[in-house]
């Protein structure tokens, strides 16, 4: 049995009468790519927001590396090694690509109460930033202002920022959102490069990507996990077919 790195225990989140996450329990194992799929409104993005700390949970526990992080604010979870990317591109638009990643590096290299030395000249920030850009294949675009990058490149930058913080677990919220087939294929290659070195929890609508990458898949419907298993098991599962895959499988 593999070691559990992120454990979600009976987690619940309600918005008024709507229960977005409903008594959900899930264990993410170290080193795996765990995809969470489900129809629109299943509570996938809510789950990521709860895990990353941008949204408080109503009940339940989140245990990361053996530590209860349920009550920790987002920035502390990031420091512990729980990184996320966003479904809607969420970068520093007016900074260059390298500045974006350097800021992520800076967040994880001690406090930022340093007032006089020029941050853009610090090799300790720029070198890791360059490396992270290279891992997602953006090194040639390092000095381009983020707002001027193509959509696919901005998505790659999202991943570079998450990876630059040296996370143990990477929460990816629809990394393929809005991408064409060519960009998607490139992103799948980028993510495949993280297999083994990182634990990935991936939310995705693109089924080709999910089945190409995932070691295990959880199907979320109305905030509850109706099935968890290997891709081939999920493909065969009758309940999943009825609830979600239906015509696609």
């Amino acid at each position, binding site marked *: 049995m593999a070691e559990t790195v992120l454990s979600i225990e009976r987690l619940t989140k309600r918005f008024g009468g709507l229960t977005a996450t409903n008594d959900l329990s899930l264990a993410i194992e170290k080193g795996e790519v765990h995809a969470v799929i489900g129809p629109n409104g299943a509570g996938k993005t809510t789950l990521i927001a709860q895990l990353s700390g941008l949204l408080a949970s109503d009940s339940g526990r989140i245990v990361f590396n053996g530590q209860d992080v349920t009550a920790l*604010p987002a920035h502390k979870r990031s420091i512990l090694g729980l990184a*996320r990317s966003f479904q809607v591109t969420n970068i520093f638009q007016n900074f260059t690509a390298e*500045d974006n990643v350097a800021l*992520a590096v*800076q967040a994880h290299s001690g406090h930022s*109460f340093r007032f006089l030395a*020029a941050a853009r000249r610090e090799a300790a920030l720029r070198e890791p930033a360059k490396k992270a850009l290279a891992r997602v294949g953006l090194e040639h675009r390092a000095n381009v202002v983020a707002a001027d990058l193509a959509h696919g490149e901005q998505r790659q930058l999202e991943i570079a920022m998450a990876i630059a913080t040296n996370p143990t677990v990477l929460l990816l919220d629809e990394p393929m959102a809005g991408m064409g087939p060519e960009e998607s294929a490139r992103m799948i290659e980028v993510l495949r490069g993280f297999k083994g070195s990182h634990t990935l929890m991936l939310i995705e609508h693109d089924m080709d990507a999910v089945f190409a990458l995932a070691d295990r898949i959880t199907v979320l419907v109305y905030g509850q996990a109706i099935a968890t298993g290997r891709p081939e098991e999920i493909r065969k599962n009758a309940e999943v077919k009825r609830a979600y895959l239906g015509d696609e499988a």
Partner: protein
Amino acid sequence: MAGAGVTRIPELRASLSDPRFLLIAIGAIVLVLYPATVVIPLPDFLKPILGGIWGQTYLISLVAKMLIFAIAAVSLDLILGYGGMVSFGHAAYIGLGAYGVAVWSKYGIDNGYLQLASAIAGSALVALFIGAISLRTSGVYFIMITLAFTQMLYYLGISLEPFGGDDGMNTKRSDFALHLIGLDFTLNDNVFSCEKRIDKACKVDDRDGAAIYYASYLALIAAVWFCRRLVNSRFGMAIRGAMSNPVRMQAVGFPIYRYRLTAFVIAGTICGVAGFLFANHQQFLSPVYMNWLRSGDFLIMVILGGMGTIYGAVIGAIGLLTLEEVLEGYVGKDYWQMVLGPLLVLLVLFANRGVYSLIPHQMRGVPMFIVRVVVFIAGMSAFVWLMSRSSPILKLAGSIQHLPLYVIFASILIALGLRFWQESRTHHG
């Protein structure tokens, strides 16, 4: 470290061919020499051009005031242009710095070190308090809360009868003498002695002390240098990131609240030093220093000069006070705000990234820039002349109680709104 030295040389060469750098350098030199015009006779051939401004004591005093307000504007740009914090209460720290002088002065203590320390401590503590509460909000709420706190301080000042209340009180200039080491320096000094002066005028209480001018000048240079370093440091990147995308900053691991609060306190403290200098300049304390109109002025200075540039705030402060002076002189004491308001809106519309952004980056842009400046000055002169001619209309409008105040208030809000609308369009367009 040898490598660092090598990379600096091309940078210096690059800045020498940058008109913006040259303009700043020329401005700094002109400002350092200006008070000396009281002891240097003006050559005859220059009299038609410079006669009006050469060796004029009241103008030297006005420029000193510009330098002091430039310090305040620079400190506001730090949080506004780099932190996205639209503080509509920055005048509070001018007032607090001034009280740092006045409270001691009332009891006959003129020790400048003590007064300056009080001004710094007082403004830092109040900024910490106001910031700690205001920074829990954002957007319009932040604007309104900072405004409300400053108005509270303003009314507190009015009700403080021991320190003159509504009427204010006279203060003495700070004394920085250190007799132990033979240092004998007060902010009341005239650097240029009376005998050498062309007009031979030398009244002790005249607001012509070159010492206050140069103290303000040095403080401004220090403030600009410090803020420029700050915004490019790790700390600066943290507050800029928090302005650009606060959610992402938290997700990436920054506790943004404490960085923003620190920036707010630093800005308040620098502005407190400006307040200390202002009380020395005016030799007077008044709660009006904390009036919301002054907070609005500081916002306008930063917006006019160019947010997020630091240098722009200096240009904005000098520009706005010049405009005020000219309009007050030609349009009249009661109505000039009615003219200034719409003018500000127009300026924000046309120089939408601020005056600093209009200065060319390369030498070949200079001639066109000079043409623009000349056209602007000519246009302004025509406008002011027109306004001074149509004063009956203004008089009629001015007869409605407080109308000039409403006009300036509305104009500041419109200018602010326009500026942020433009900003949001450039980021997402």
